[in-house]
């Protein structure tokens, strides 16, 4: 991960923005969907705050992993012990 934020100030935004904007918007949209689902189920799923960090910090992969795996891992899942 590139943590040098000052590089962001030097980018010629006007040049890049029209093309980069859809990518940014879609990324935020997918994070938004994952956060909405997380907010509804935060008392239900196992380790909710770990998943919150994953959704926000891992770009693109975090929300998808949450939606595929995270929302199914439920606290006190008794069905797993019997199988």
């Amino acid at each position: 991960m590139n943590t040098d934020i000052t590089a962001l100030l030097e980018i010629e935004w006007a040049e890049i923005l029209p093309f980069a904007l859809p990518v940014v918007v879609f990324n935020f949209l997918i994070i938004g969907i994952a956060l909405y689902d997380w907010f509804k189920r935060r008392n239900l799923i196992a380790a909710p705050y770990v998943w919150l960090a994953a959704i926000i910090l891992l770009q693109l992969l975090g929300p998808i992993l949450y939606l595929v795996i995270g929302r199914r891992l439920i606290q006190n899942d008794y069905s797993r012990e019997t199988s």
Partner: protein
Amino acid sequence: MTNFYTLTRTELVEAAKEFKFIWLTLFFVILGITQPLITKYMDVILENVGGADGITIDPNRPVPSSAEVLLSTISGQFNQIGLIILIISFMGLIAADRNSGMQDFVLTRPVSLRSYLLSKLMGNWVISMFSISIGAAVSYGYTIFLFGSFSFSNFLLFVLLYSLWILFIVSLAILISTFVKSPILIAVTTIAVSIFFILVKGFNHLLFQLSPGGILNLAENQLLSVHDLNYFSIATCLAFILLNLSWANRNLKKS
């Protein structure tokens, strides 16, 4: 066939409730947009992002044609990271049913095993193709905008042939989930086998051309406007899908 219809609809409704249509589509759209943009603006990106001092890009480099960019989007992005996410998204298609006891519940009704398996295949195929075709269409739009025009009918033919490959992947996942219990293992095995087929299709030997990966070769050649195509691989791909399904059917019947 009404059983098949009901089960397929259940599958689609379940996917809609999990926002699967939305996030899978968004994921493929992002994948499809990123590749043409990076190809086009590589020099701008390298100039502006720090830590790239001393790297120069040949200013006289040939501009890739739109067909090449589309090809690199599909075979470089959709067929690698896209395939992995796709398989992870349907790794539980039979395992989840079995572990929650829903499979016994469904199969004790007057529902044939065949319509159950076919509905799984159909439902997941429709979901995947919905997302992939939207992602590919957006990628196509960006590509012709940035790199010049490309025949739409060839692109359509390509998506049709690519959908057969996705159908094969879904049937492979069904087959493997009759052998293995844990969803994660199913995903890993399916990814490994499908990547094996993708690798093997490159060898120029009749045996490898007849493997299911041959359909990918045929699809990619639609983009490159190669004549002398081997349409026989459509038949072999369909045969492999049927083989997978009947094998899965037999395995489930035994257990």
